[in-house]
């Protein structure tokens, strides 16, 4: 039996896992499903906490970085990024 990684990336409304999901991406290392940009309009979970409750393991979260002086109002990438994984066993 081999192991493959599935990765779920959630962007939340808050820097807390209680925050609502505002953006998401899924990458399936088992090859069972090919995800792509624009493939779903509804998030897979309402909040980051709901992903934990469904067995996803958090392995990275974005840091809080103070805004650069003079650039306090500049907006850019989505801020509250959380990477989760699930490992799946099978014959791939």
């Amino acid at each position: 039996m081999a192991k493959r990684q599935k990765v779920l990336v959630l962007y939340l409304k808050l820097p807390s896992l209680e925050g609502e999901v505002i953006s998401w991406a899924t990458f399936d290392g088992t090859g069972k499903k090919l995800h792509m940009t624009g493939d779903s309009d509804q998030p897979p979970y309402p909040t980051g906490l709901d992903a934990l409750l469904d067995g996803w393991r958090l392995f990275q979260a974005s840091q809080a970085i103070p805004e650069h002086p003079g650039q306090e109002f500049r907006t850019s990438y989505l801020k509250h990024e959380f990477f989760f994984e699930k490992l799946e066993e099978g014959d791939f």
Partner: protein
Amino acid sequence: MAKLLTTEQMAEFANSGCLFFDELIDEQTNKEFLDDIGHTEIDEVDSVQHYYRNIKATSSIPRIPAGTKLKDAYPKGSPLEKIFAHEVVDGAIKSLVGSNTIIDHQFLHITFPTKYFKQANQRQMSQQNHQDSTIDPRSTFDVQLFYFPTEVTKEMGGTRYHPGTHLRIVNEFGIAKYQNILGQKSIVCKPGTIGIFHSGLWHGAGVNFSENIRYMFKVRLQPTEKQELLWDPEKKYQPLPNRALYWTDESKEKTINDILMRSYPWQEADTNRLDKINVVKFWRLLTGHKKMDVDYWLTRIENELY
């Protein structure tokens, strides 16, 4: 005669970064455009390269050096010349980028259906989200005008876009990792529809699961003058007075300020407030009222006493 945008349409553009004009171009001009590019059924297409080569060889779409004036760009009587001469298209362009706008680039985007990818044994994927065309910290903005000569159904994918993202400064495909963004939209439209995007709006091409080819003709336009009250040459616009915040008066009618302050579901709780501040700053530039404010967002933090 050009039909300039209304202040409500300008506020919509300032807040969402886009405007749409459904079924604006008439059926005859759409047909002339499709005939001109040699539109055919997907079964007749052997390769993407050949299809483009044929269009470039036979259509009236000229090669336009970057920086060419729009008014000198297209052959007289050609479908594109007619489209840009339309009073609504002409008025929207003049309102946003002025009367002496120049062309950055143009392109006929063609999205092939599933059948083509199966025949070519290629993986059919959507285009990732991106912002054209490189990191752009200017206050000046360009617009991208889209023309859809055929109907675009939901099955055909359409151009995906994210309203309200235009003032977020990112580096092109640096946003490609966001596969899905809450509130994302796709342009599903009737033939002859025109869309206008602020050059900063996040977008990408959707997958075409239909049996028909999807076309979208795009032109990026740059201003050569300050984009201040171009839609209001008589300078009639006046900012509205302050209103009550949080403990609000719901009996008041909706105003331009409600359009400017609209939120989007993808915005973070904290950064959403910065997005509003940036819309107010953008509106100050567009109107020339350098101290105007909406809902006290800038007045509050400009009250520096030391």
